Structure formats: structure tokens, C-alpha cells
């Protein structure tokens, strides 16, 4: 006898924070069960949406029951814990979608937590300029969905049918995640440049260098270089350059104004993944013998080892070409 099948239209959103709230409006056509440990977060989410088929629970197994897609809506730093919690209830035919943009110790990418801790293999990741605010303003989004499994891409399209999103498809799960995570570190640098009044050009050059360094690191761990010229790379660079509201920018601005890291973090609302990503990127570059002056510079500024203005000006004077040391 065959075990019970999953409901093709049911999505479990695990995490009712910022990422969770954002995705709900994308999942137009699905039944959604949202899990969070904090009843207050669930209430807030329920209050912020008029989705007709949404339920909330503080029981992760209940949320996952029958769901054919699990959307893991937590920052990278909480993924390991979430994966441990969901592992006992996961089924091999359940698919996973990730949107975390950061890395953890040892430059672990979000999908690696899922692989290392659970039996789930059919994984997809969101990337590119997926900005929640635009969605809530009713504008059309462009986003990348990267997966080695075309069924995952089909599933995401199916459950988001009717939502104003245009998906571009990639198979480069590693590249898309690296571009997103390392781009955040470049945004910190851009914020600093702004606060230090280094000018728009400087801001653009720093972001462009960030993308090149992301590519260098990505390729070293198996990403495809072309990914960084696509929507997940250049495609996100431009919005990063023109956008003015973003946590990583805010953190950079605070640091640029001379605040030490602790105070700067306290001044920014929400979790800033770029701080850990900077440290891990530098460590990875050292292991792989790669040169990443921007990432190393940001890391040094974050920890008060160097003065921001001099450091950024040094970086700006470097030619924009990268290679191994």
C-alpha cells in the first residue's frame, strides 16, 4: 500500500518574520500554514494579510502535514536550528524553497543546512532583486528561482500563480546564493561611502567590486561565472545602487558616521546577515588563496581595525580586476 500523498497545493511557511510575511502575498493560489514558535509573530502576520486560505500554528509538524512545499523563512543564522526542528517531520517528496541571504560558519550556504540535517533534497532558492516593499506597493517583481530540480521550479510557479512576479530560472543554486549573500556586504560598503560623502561613483564602484568578489568566491566553490552577469548578479546590482532603504545600507551608514559595530547594529531594525557573511567570506578567500580586498576591507572596518574612509579610498584606487593571489 502506498503511503498518503501530499497536497499539491499546500505550502508550509516556516517562520512568521519578515521573510514569512513577504512570501504570503506571493502564494496566491495555495493553502498556507504558517509556523512560528512565537504566537505574537503569527498574530502579526495573520493581521497583515487577507489571504483567504491561511492558518497559523506553533506546532511545526502540524504546519508541515501534507504540505508539498516548505518555505523556510528565517535568516541564515537560524536555519540550522529550524532544520533540526523540521527534520523529524520532513518527507523525501516534500520540496524546499529558501530565501535566506547569508552564510554561516565555514561559508555554509542555506541549502547546505537542509542537505546536512534533513532528508529533503529537492531544494530551490530565491535570488535576484526580490523586494518586498515593491510587492506590497502592487508592483511587478522580477526574481530568480534556482534549482537543480525542474519540478521545484514548476511547483513554485504553480503555488504563486496569479502573483505579480516574473521568475527567471537558473540551475546555479550556489551562485545565486553567493551573489545574494556577498552583495549584502557590498551594500554595507555602499552605505559607508554614502555617509562619508564619497559620492555616487564611489558607491557604484564599491558595489561593482562586491559583485566581482562574489563571483571570485562563488566560482571557487562551484558556482558558474555567468550567474553573476544575470539577474541574480548584475540584475540586483542596479537596484542596490538606486535603492535607499535597506538594512545593510543602514548599517553601513551608521558605521560611516563613526558608530562602532554594536551601536550600529542596534540602530538598524532587523537582522543584518552581511556581518557574518563578511567574516566568512574573508575566511573562505584565505583558504582558497583568493584576493577579496573589498570584503576584507569591510570586515576590518566592521571590527574597528581600520579607519573607514582611508580603507574605502584604498579599495577605490584598486583596478577592477580580480584573480588569485
Amino acid at each position, binding site marked *: 500500500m*502506498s*503511503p*498518503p*500523498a*501530499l497536497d*499539491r497545493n499546500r505550502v508550509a511557511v516556516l517562520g512568521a518574520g519578515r521573510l514569512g510575511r513577504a512570501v504570503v502575498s506571493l502564494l496566491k493560489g495555495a493553502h498556507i500554514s504558517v509556523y512560528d514558535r512565537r504566537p505574537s509573530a503569527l498574530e502579526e502576520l495573520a493581521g497583515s494579510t487577507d489571504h483567504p486560505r491561511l492558518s497559523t500554528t506553533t506546532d511545526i509538524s502540524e504546519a508541515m502535514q501534507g504540505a508539498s512545499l516548505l518555505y523556510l523563512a528565517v535568516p541564515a543564522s537560524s536555519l540550522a536550528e529550524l532544520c*533540526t526542528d523540521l*527534520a*523529524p517531520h*520532513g*518527507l*523525501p*517528496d516534500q520540496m524546499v524553497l529558501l530565501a535566506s541571504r547569508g552564510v554561516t560558519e565555514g561559508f555554509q550556504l542555506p541549502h547546505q543546512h537542509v*542537505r*546536512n*540535517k*534533513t*532528508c529533503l*533534497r*529537492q531544494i530551490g532558492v530565491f535570488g535576484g532583486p526580490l523586494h518586498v516593499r515593491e510587492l506590497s506597493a502592487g508592483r511587478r517583481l522580477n526574481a530568480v528561482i534556482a534549482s*537543480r*530540480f*525542474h*519540478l521545484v521550479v514548476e511547483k513554485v510557479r504553480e503555488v504563486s500563480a496569479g502573483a505579480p512576479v516574473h521568475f527567471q530560472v537558473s540551475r546555479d543554486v550556489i551562485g545565486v546564493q553567493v551573489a545574494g549573500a556577498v552583495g549584502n556586504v557590498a551594500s554595507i560598503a555602499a552605505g559607508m561611502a554614502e555617509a562619508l560623502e564619497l559620492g555616487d561613483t564611489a558607491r557604484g564602484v564599491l558595489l561593482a567590486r562586491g559583485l566581482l568578489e562574489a563571483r571570485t568566491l562563488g566560482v571557487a566553490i562551484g558556482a558558474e561565472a555567468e550567474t553573476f552577469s544575470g539577474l541574480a548578479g548584475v540584475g540586483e546590482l542596479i537596484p542596490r545602487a538606486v535603492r535607499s532603504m535597506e538594512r545593510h545600507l543602514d548599517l553601513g551608514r551608521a558605521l560611516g558616521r563613526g558608530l562602532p559595530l554594536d551601536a550600529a547594529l542596534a540602530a538598524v531594525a532587523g537582522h543584518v546577515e552581511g556581518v557574518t557573511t563578511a567574516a566568512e567570506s574573508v575566511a573562505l578567500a584565505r583558504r582558497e588563496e583568493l584576493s577579496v580586498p573589498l570584503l576584507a576591507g569591510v570586515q576590518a572596518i566592521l571590527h574597528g581595525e581600520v579607519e573607514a574612509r582611508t580603507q574605502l579610498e584604498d579599495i577605490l584606487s584598486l583596478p577592477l580586476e580580480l584573480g588569485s593571489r
Partner: protein
Amino acid sequence: MRREDQERILSELVTRLGAAEDVPKLRERLEDSLYFERQRLDADRGKSPAYARDVQFWDGIRERLRKRSGEPPAALLRSVLRFYAEEIQGNFDPRVYELVTRFAPSGLGLMLNAVSPLRLVQRLPELPKMEDRIVIQGEVEHLRRLHERGTVMLVPTHVSNLDSPVVGFALFKMGLPPFLYGAGLNLFTNPVMSFFMRNLGAYTVDRKKQDPVYKSVLKEYATLTIEHGYDNLFFPGGTRSRSGAVERKLKRGLLGCGLSAYVNNLRRGAPNPKVFIVPCTLSSQLVLEAETLIDDFLKEVGKSRYIIDDDEFSQPKRVFDFLTRLTELDSKNHVTVSRGLDVFGNPVDDEGRSYGPNGQVIDDRRYLYVEGEPQIVPDRDGEYTTDLAEAIADSFARDNVVDCTHVTARALFRTLRRRNPGVSTLRLIRTGGRDEDLPLVELYTEADNLLREVRAKAERGQLRLARSTVGPADEVVSDGILHFGIYHKKAAATRRGDRVLLPDRTLLLYYQNRLEGYGLEGGDLLADDRRSLREVRP
């Protein structure tokens, strides 16, 4: 294989692969087959025994394809499929198989006959008994259990043509029936060996055939035998490791057969549908074909020649010498059976249940579900097979048995490098560095450090150590040098007083490579020097 299964597998194969396709595409496929086979036959120029038969067959196909007399191309494709499948299956005689498997004691003799060249020289009184030389260890009981609960694909590491007789013998000692085994056509050239190999389940693989249709027939044939419950033996490295290193990159083509067979089994509700992949690591102190293999590696770093038909294996005298010398030294061959995996790379227990990374039993059938039903989905299944290949490679690394020869070779290389800072591996191999010889004392120190490192790794389960590495460094090194001197034409290293000479440094590289990829101090020679090796070929 049972006779009724033979015919059933053939016709099922033709049905599956001959399924309807539009006519222009079909014609294209047949034209491609003709092209590839023409190329192969032109290069062969009558050397292979099947040359005349093949030429005749393909001439016929061309004729029928050109003649627009109305014969549907689908019928031609079916002829091609059957032609290939029959060659792969060979002239298997079920009666011989029955006899061998029923009468175990006499079966041993036959078995050795069948899968090894040993019998050919066995009348010589000094010939070593395999029994004394082969140490079977690891998850033996587990393998027997899995054999009861489903179909097993045994996937060993591969360094020598002697590997298949060793595995054949090990299977016999473990009380298991012979496994089906795809053997290179070059191993069938001896008629005596060929007769027994075929009758003990070896089917032929002609690696010179580039026709995609042939490759699909081969895969489908393996898949079908697994579906019919025949345990299979594959060397997932695809060919003997040229560098001597434990295989890290595996061929996914044949590995994926397990998954296809499993899906088909589930879909038709077969009893014991599961397919278990059991990695098996073969380790030895010396390798018969070491010189040829490492030469090939250095010549063609990055793209191996794949088919060598003129190596030590084809010289009975050398095979004989090799085995005799090893016996004199009481040298051991280790066959280490690893824990079984499901076709997705998850570990399984004795009952064949799959376990997820969190140590919980999982229903592995669900990996194959689309809308609640098991289905073949090529891109997804390819990813699963990549995962499986990785899990197998991890098992190989963990169950590789490091011997005195490997420790000695690596310690010698370290000594060489220390005395010649900045000199590339390749240059060291060619010139031997600035010294005529090396002081034994320095070698001992290096070996001592290295032993400390590998012992720590062995304790953590990252590799295994042979008994020859248990003693103090000087004993291990002496044993290693002794082995280097007994068989190879030129020794990798020899001792003179308190100095060591290195007559054949390529062999040294070959044996040290067995310790590559473990993150040992001094880095990986292969990784560091791959580029320089590629640039300047010796």
C-alpha cells in the same frame, strides 16, 4: 542467470528502447550508429575477432536503411538493439552457472578459473593461494543480509585487472553467489578465461563502441538484470585509477541503473524491490600494473587513455612473478566492505531501511514520488545519483587501507620536497632533486610524523591502517622499501647503508597518491601540481 530470464531480458530491452519515435529522428539515430560503428571498424581493421561479423551486420543495416523499400526504421532499430544486447549478454550457458553455484567446493576451483588468470598458471607448485592473501573485513554480515532483502550492486575501487578475481573470490568466501559483472572486451581475449567469465555472469562491455545506442543498451541491460534480482558488480570509477589515488570522481551512468531498476520494481509491485549499493574498497601493498598506469597518468593528466591492452596483465609471467613475490612477503590484499547505501546515497541498516541525516528511518520510496506515484524524472534522478556517487566516494576514502608502501612513498616525497624547496613535483620526479640519495634518518623522521598523522585519522574513522603500519617508523619504512624492491622492474626506492636511492620516482608518486585527498601535512601533490603536470609532459 536463468535461461528464461536471458530471453526475457533481451526482448524486454528491445521493447523498452525500441519504443516509437518519429521516423526522421529514428533515421538520424540509425545514421549516427552507422557512422560511429564505421569509424570504430575502420580503426580496428580486422584486429578484433568480431570484425567480420560486425562489418557484415552494419553493411546489412546500411543497405536496408538506404533501400526505401518500406521497411520501417523502427524494425531496423530493433535489429540494432538486439545485435548489441546479444553481444553484451554473450553466450552464457546456464548449466555451467548452475553447476558452479550448486557444488560449492568444486565451485571454488571453477570460480578461480573463471574470473582470474590464476588458473592458467596454477599448476605451478609455488603458486600462492589466494586464500592466504586476501583479508576480507568490514560489513560482511550486513552485505549478506542485504543480499537477502533486495538486489545488491557491489561497487569496488579499481586499480588492477586482478581486482575482479579478488572480488569474485571474496564473494565466494562470504558465501554469496557470483555477481553479474561487465568486463572489458579485452579481458575476453583468452578463450579459456572468456568461457568461464561468461558463464559466471560476466557480460561484455566494449569501451571502443562510441555509439550512443550501444551505451543505452548497456545501461538498460544492467538495469534489467537488477530488476530481475541479479546482483551486479560495477567499478564506478569506470577504469583503473591511473594515478593510484582512491577514486573521488565516479561515473554516474551505470550507477544510475540502480535507481531506474528501483523505480521499475516499485511500479510493477515487485517483491523485495529495493536496490542496495555496497561500496567495497580494495587495497594492496603493490599493484601489478603500477608502472603502466602511472605512466599513462603522467602522459595524459586530465584525460586518460581508458583502454590499455598491452600492460603487465597481458604477460602471464609477470602476473605469476607478482603473485609469488607477494606470497613470499606474506603480503595482504584487503577487501573492505562498507555499509550499504540506498540508490539516493542514504545509509541502510541490515533490514534495508534507509536513514536520513538526523538518524531517523525514512521512507525512501517517496524520493521518487510525483503526485504520490514513483516516476522517473531524469534531472532529479541525475541529482540523486550525484549524491550517491559522493556517498560512495566518502566510503572509499574511509575504508581505504593504508599500507607500509604508501606511508614510505609519501614520507620519501616529503623528504625530497623538504630538501628541494620550490621545486615542482614534476621536476622532482624527472630529476630526483639535487641529491643523489637521501639520508635514512630524515626519512624516518618524516615517516614518524606521517604515521602520527594517519593514525590520528584512523582513530577518527577517516581511513584504515594495515597491520604493516603498526610498528615504529623504521620498521614500517623497511617493510615498504622491501616491497618496492621485490617486483617492479625498477624499484621505487632501495636502501644502501644509511642512505636511500630512488631509482623510479614515478612509482613513488603512484604509491604516495593513495594518501592524496586526506588533507595531510604537505598538501596534495596532485592538486598542487596538476597544472604543472599538464603543462610539461615528461
